């Protein structure tokens, strides 16, 4: 797998290309935080409650953690714990998205009174 070029690069960087995977994950983490801040700071007050429940649904992604972990789990108790975790995660996901959808679909779509805000301003 080590071609001349990557060997050279890795050597140059002092042993490991982009540092430990932990650092790469840290980079991802920080970028995600910026995305979160940027996207959410644009949400109008009106939508705060649906937003709260929408983001709430998104952290139901922990369900994936249960699915990944159960693949390598052994023993009754471990599996049992993870089934509960999966059930919890599912409640979080399914309930969260459904309830958000219910709330949002109640916002009546009427033509906005003011002309659509100018894109360039």
């Amino acid at each position: 797998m080590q071609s001349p070029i990557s060997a050279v690069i890795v050597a140059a960087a002092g042993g490991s290309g982009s540092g430990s995977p932990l650092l790469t994950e840290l980079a991802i983490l920080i970028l995600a935080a910026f995305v979160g801040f940027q996207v959410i700071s644009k949400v109008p007050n009106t939508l705060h409650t649906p937003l709260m429940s929408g983001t709430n649904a998104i952290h139901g992604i922990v369900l994936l953690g249960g699915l990944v972990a159960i693949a390598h789990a052994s023993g009754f108790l471990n599996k049992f714990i993870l089934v509960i975790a999966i059930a919890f995660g599912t409640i979080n996901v399914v309930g969260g998205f459904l309830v958000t959808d219910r709330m949002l679909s109640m916002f009546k779509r009427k033509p906005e009174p003011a002309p659509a805000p100018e894109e360039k301003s």
Partner: protein
Amino acid sequence: MTATVFFQEPNFINATYIVAFSLFITGLAKLTSPTTAVQGNKIAAFGMLIAVVATLLNPALDGSDFLLIAIGLAIGTAVGVPAARNVKMTAMPQMVALFNGVGGGAVALIAWAEFRQSHGDLAAELDVGIPLVFAAIIGSISFWGSNIAFGKLQGLISGSPVKIPGGLFVNIALLAAAIGAGVAILLGSTSEGLFILLLVSAAVLGNLAVLPIGGADMPVVISTLNAFTGLSAAAAGIALDNTALIVAGMIVGASGTILTDQMAKAMNRSIGSVLLGGFGGTAPAIEGGASETGGTVRSTSAADVAILMAYARQVVVVPGYGMAVAQAQHAVREMAKELERRNIEVKYAIHPVAGRMPGHMNVLLAEADVPYDQLKEMDDINPEFGRTDVAIVIGANDVTNPDARLKPDSPIYGMPILNVDESKQVIVLKRSMASGFAGIENPLFYDPKTQMLFGDAKASVSEITSELGAL
């Protein structure tokens, strides 16, 4: 079988995760406008679906795993779907608390299972061990804290602050115990007892931290715990090397933090003072005694209110927490229709923290089919009160309190309020002279322009509507 093998490759699964989190971000971005919000939520849900499906392609899953997963998914769906379908709009805060709690619980359980699976050996690889310990502590706090918040809002536990002897000191000790157990594990201990101590300390901390906070402050608490669950999910993602968890968890962590901050700011309080507890519950203590202090109060009847409104050109409805309690939103919509039939202009003045959640009033009124272009935000409606004939305050209190503008020593001084007192006539619908969330007097009720219509908001509004019809 080559196709299956390709789909089961970790690279394919991880590429799918990238698509999934891109959909989350796109969906959230679309939540910024009411016209695209429904679609945004669906996009995010679709992202979740493909993330789950991709994870199930993992070739290491065998038949018995699938059985267990099916059981878990079935239980979760059986609980989650009816709960989400049947919850009343007024019960949204506690529903969100519940969903948030189970998310945190899932993280804590996964961390526990991973600990057991590694036979307690977290010390060997700290970049897995540290996030796992973090996820366990935060997840456990979030689970128990959210449950208490749910209990308080649902009325299962007393909404008023429960004083804990020792208070802050006990909480710090519990946190220290949880962290201490975590550090011991990371330094090489493989004792499961320590891990359980960690989970239990965090659990007790979650309980004790939320119990002393008044029921009315719960939305801020839930929002904080929402951010916590997001962060714990991100930590679990680092431990499990799962990009989807890292990105989605962190986005929620960041957004929950902003939301908490905005809610606290709109209430003119610091997050710290909310979380240290006590404030939200002083209201009941004053309740009943509030009417004794100075000023005269004019009480009126539904018939008089109907006449007053029938001759108005513009009526502004100012809803508050009481409308949610009375579930008067549909009755309010009926009243507005009756007024509009008479060519009277009706607007709704929405204070950002009216009710008990940001956007609480918007959601309730949307449920009652009030078109959202009639809902005016505070900054838009405040200049209007001067030319408003009748402002009808339905179960709102603090958000109309002129002391916030005028009395520098008031606890809510500086909070932006709806300038209801500038309109020509003010009608206040509530059950008594009791104070609202902040537990303070409202001089608006003693204003000569103000008339009180005592009683449950829903009953009072319906009565006004029928009086209007009879005119």
